[in-house]
């Protein structure tokens, strides 16, 4: 009966205009979330406009100019093959963005389907699917990804699938959990009492109400996906073409020149950190604004 006496979650006098409008309003007043959003906007626009922003092509360079320290013509110096590091970091954002977003979407599709089947159907289906998910969860994420890339071979699609598979079990669990709690909720019982079919209950009543935790998890997963993709690159399991400007691969390549050219580690590393922090801050902010009870 606590529900009946619950006061409005919004402290100010502004009238409520719906879940999403309210959530957006709360998000905009959350400092760290706005900072995260700015970092993501920066990251995405760099990826999209890399060809316009970069002074050189990602593969352009001559060995004569190799390992030059940062100066005005090469803002972040040059790498061991004389390519402009600044341009390569900008182009690297493309690879990270595409790999990160696609792997999360792939993970959401796989994990979401498993979670929806398990939570929606229940019973034996639920048990079997969830034990499978438990097995996947028991393997450390990066190890699982390495295994999948080793099994499927190197290549960007394989990397995306590998990272997707590390995220999918988490999404499956989250969705199944919220579906299970919704299944016993009053309005689902009420919809059943007017004769709604099982499919309708799941698609129209339960799924839309269980999306918020999934949105938060997906945003946070973008951060880990970017790190995972870079991690695979760093371990030598990056894109098959070694010239591809991938942040993780760039880090590995530059470790050999740690003493001569430390900036080669600094800039791709900073790029990874900035994009990951951006998604983390936004994810936390989303969690708080979508669920007002989380706020103190």
């Amino acid at each position: 009966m606590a529900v009946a006496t619950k006061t409005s979650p919004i402290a100010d006098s502004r009238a409520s205009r719906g879940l999403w409008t309210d959530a957006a309003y709360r998000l905009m007043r959350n400092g760290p979330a706005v900072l995260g959003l700015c970092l993501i906007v920066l990251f995405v626009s760099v990826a999209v406009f890399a060809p316009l922003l970069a002074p050189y092509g990602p593969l352009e360079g001559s060995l004569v100019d190799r390992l030059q320290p940062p100066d005005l013509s090469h803002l972040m110096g040059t790498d061991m093959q004389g390519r402009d590091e600044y341009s390569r970091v900008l182009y690297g954002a493309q690879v990270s963005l595409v790999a990160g977003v696609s792997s999360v979407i792939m993970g959401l599709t796989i994990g979401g389907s498993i979670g929806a089947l398990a939570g929606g159907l229940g019973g034996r289906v639920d048990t079997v699917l969830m034990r499978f998910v438990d097995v996947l969860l028991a393997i450390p994420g990066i190890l699982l990804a390495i295994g999948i890339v080793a099994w499927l071979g190197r290549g960007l699609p394989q990397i995306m699938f590998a990272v997707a598979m590390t995220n999918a079990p988490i999404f499956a669990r989250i969705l199944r959990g919220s579906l299970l709690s919704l299944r016993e909720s009053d309005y689902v019982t009420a919809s059943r009492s007017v004769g709604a079919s099982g499919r309708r209950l799941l698609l129209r009543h339960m799924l839309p109400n269980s999306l918020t935790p999934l949105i938060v998890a997906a945003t946070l997963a973008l951060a880990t996906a970017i790190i995972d993709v870079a991690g695979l690159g760093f371990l030598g399991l990056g894109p098959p073409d070694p010239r591809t400007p991938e942040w993780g691969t760039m880090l590995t390549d530059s470790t050999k020149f740690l003493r001569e050219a430390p900036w080669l580690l600094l800039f791709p590393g900073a790029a990874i950190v900035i994009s990951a922090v951006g998604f983390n801050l936004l994810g936390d902010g989303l969690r708080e604004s979508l669920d007002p009870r989380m706020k103190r």
Partner: protein
Amino acid sequence: MTAVRGGEPETLLEVRDLLVRFRTHDGTIYAVNGVGFELGRGERLGLVGESGCGKSVTNLAIIRLLPKPAGRIEGGQVLFDGQDLVKLSESELREIRGRDIAMIFQDPMTSLNPVLTVEEQMIETIQAHKKQSKTEARARAVELLGMVGIPQPEKRLKAFPHQFSGGMRQRVMIAMALALQPKLMIADEPTTALDVTIQAQVLELISRLTTETGTSLVLITHDLGVVAGMTDRINVMYAGFIVETATTGDLFDLPSHPYTVGLLHSMPRVDAKEGEPLIPIEGRPPDMRREPTGCPFAPRCAWRVEACWSENPSLAPLAAGGRIVMTGPSASHLIACHNPPLPDEAELGRPTRKGHVPAAAPEGESDELASLAAIADGVA
């Protein structure tokens, strides 16, 4: 189906020996233990009892909405319009839910889907059973909202549940329940979550609409004041059993089960004599995880005799002889009691007969009457 016989309406719903158990990790919960009653067409039946006595579970079992997988119907029949609902398949039941049997839930704040507009939810209900275009269903929804007294129904239809007050949401729920003119409406504590001022309005609305449409009503409540004005007949439930059933008038005139007497005496009344004490029912309701043996009310009953501890009495007519009538205004007054209170004892709320001492609890049974004597002394 037989026609109406001398003031006895045609039976719409007949529940026979309904057994509901919850199998949990903590053990079995004996929620409903052989409940049986009948409901006539257009009749309004109250189901009264304290929290956890099995009122809601009985009704969830009738339309088979018990929480799965723990809740199970383990016996009995639910005959609705001649069909046994216990035996129907899920898809056959879906046809009946909403179309023939509608339900109103306790908490209107949580029984509407927060992400869909009222329009979408109402149209969904209508279209689930009737081949109707969206425009037709929409027109019907507007009509229904107007009927339950929601101002500007056209405009309010577009609103989300959170833009309605609790009372208004319950009106929306009532409108949805009545959308398909069901034969039976089950209202599970429809006003418990509402303000007192709104309660009366909502009850009046349910009462008026069900009378107008000839819908039978099962009203579940723990508030005797609510059932008094709203129902034709009352079943009093305790610990998963029906302990007394009578027409509303008979029950208030001549409460004959110690539990009903206790309920009536623990409720403040406007017409109470000055200085008349409120007598609470001693002790706590029984642990539903124990399989019931004797009378479930024995530990709290001042009228109990030896037999109460060992043998659970079945429902029997208060006045011996004559035919047992289950529905309608001439329904028989049935009680399940070995030693029913006499009318003057019911009036006073405690046993007054000479030499009566509540039978001592046998080994292993809890006696909840410990402090009753003290209270009785204080009164005298």
